[in-house]
């Protein structure tokens, strides 16, 4: 070996490079909580609009969820590294948030959001698009599976009764927001435990 450098040292350097590259690419923040938060927000909005019969149920709940998301995300941004992958996925979800806000807020306030079938089909289609794109970028079958569930929910909403459409939507919210969010959070904690602290 070179100038007293042992084979073990060279191997250790190679291992360090691999570990650090993987560490750099690993997302630093877990976004599982946002899926759970928005899942709960969807349930709250449905419950409020069903039992409270208020046109404000959806706009107010979505606005609160958006404010909480931005506030928590901002407070978590102390250590930061930008990756192309994270920027691509982040952009999809940011664009989704803006689209939903600009579409559903005026629809809700103008009172034109009256057809539940259309509402569930559109919201499912948009969420299917975002989950599908994100799943394809990250090569993450579980998230792509969520996209499939949303797409099925969107198609089913076009054919069933109002009650059936709502049940399909609530099931999709449970599977793709709450259950998926909890899965992401657990996977993130397990990943952190597996990698441990990185001493360099």
């Amino acid at each position, binding site marked *: *070996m*070179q100038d007293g*450098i042992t*084979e073990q040292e*060279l*191997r250790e*350097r*190679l291992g*360090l*490079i*691999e*570990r*650090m*590259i*993987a*560490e*750099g*690419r690993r997302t*630093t923040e877990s976004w599982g909580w946002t899926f759970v938060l928005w899942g709960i927000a969807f349930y709250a909005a449905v419950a409020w609009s069903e039992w409270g019969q208020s046109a404000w149920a959806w706009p107010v709940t979505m606005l609160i969820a958006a404010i909480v998301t931005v506030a928590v995300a901002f407070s978590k941004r*102390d*250590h*930061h*590294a*930008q*990756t*192309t992958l994270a*920027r691509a996925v982040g952009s999809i979800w940011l664009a989704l948030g803006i689209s939903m806000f600009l579409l559903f807020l005026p629809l809700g306030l103008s009172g034109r959001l009256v057809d539940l079938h259309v509402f569930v089909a559109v919201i499912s289609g948009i969420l299917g698009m975002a989950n599908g794109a994100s799943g394809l970028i990250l090569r993450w079958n579980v998230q792509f599976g969520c996209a499939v569930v949303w797409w099925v929910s969107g198609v089913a909403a076009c054919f069933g009764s109002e009650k059936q459409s709502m049940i399909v939507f609530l099931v999709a919210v449970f599977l793709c927001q709450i259950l998926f969010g909890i899965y992401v959070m657990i996977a993130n904690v397990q990943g952190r435990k597996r990698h441990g*602290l*990185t*001493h*360099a």
Partner: protein
Amino acid sequence: MPDLPELNPVVHGRLRLALLSLLSGVEEAEFTWLRAKTQATDGNLGAQLLKLEEAGYVALKKNFVLRKPQTVYRITESGRRALAEYVRALKQLLGPAVDR
């Protein structure tokens, strides 16, 4: 017997190698993120980043975010090349043992 390659001493330092490897996987990274990932002290980290900067392997940008100073580092093309050459040299030195 072919000549064994020289290992670039700037890249070979453990912390500098870790920093270059970390930066190769991201577009840019804050000082605090690099500190968290390497568990290095501020002084040591700053000194090693300065060496990499002097070698032209990393570039830094100073920003103010909410009136707080923020230093952001990114790997340069020359740094990326140096890291790739270092990996190639390592593999050559290890020879067939690299897959063991």
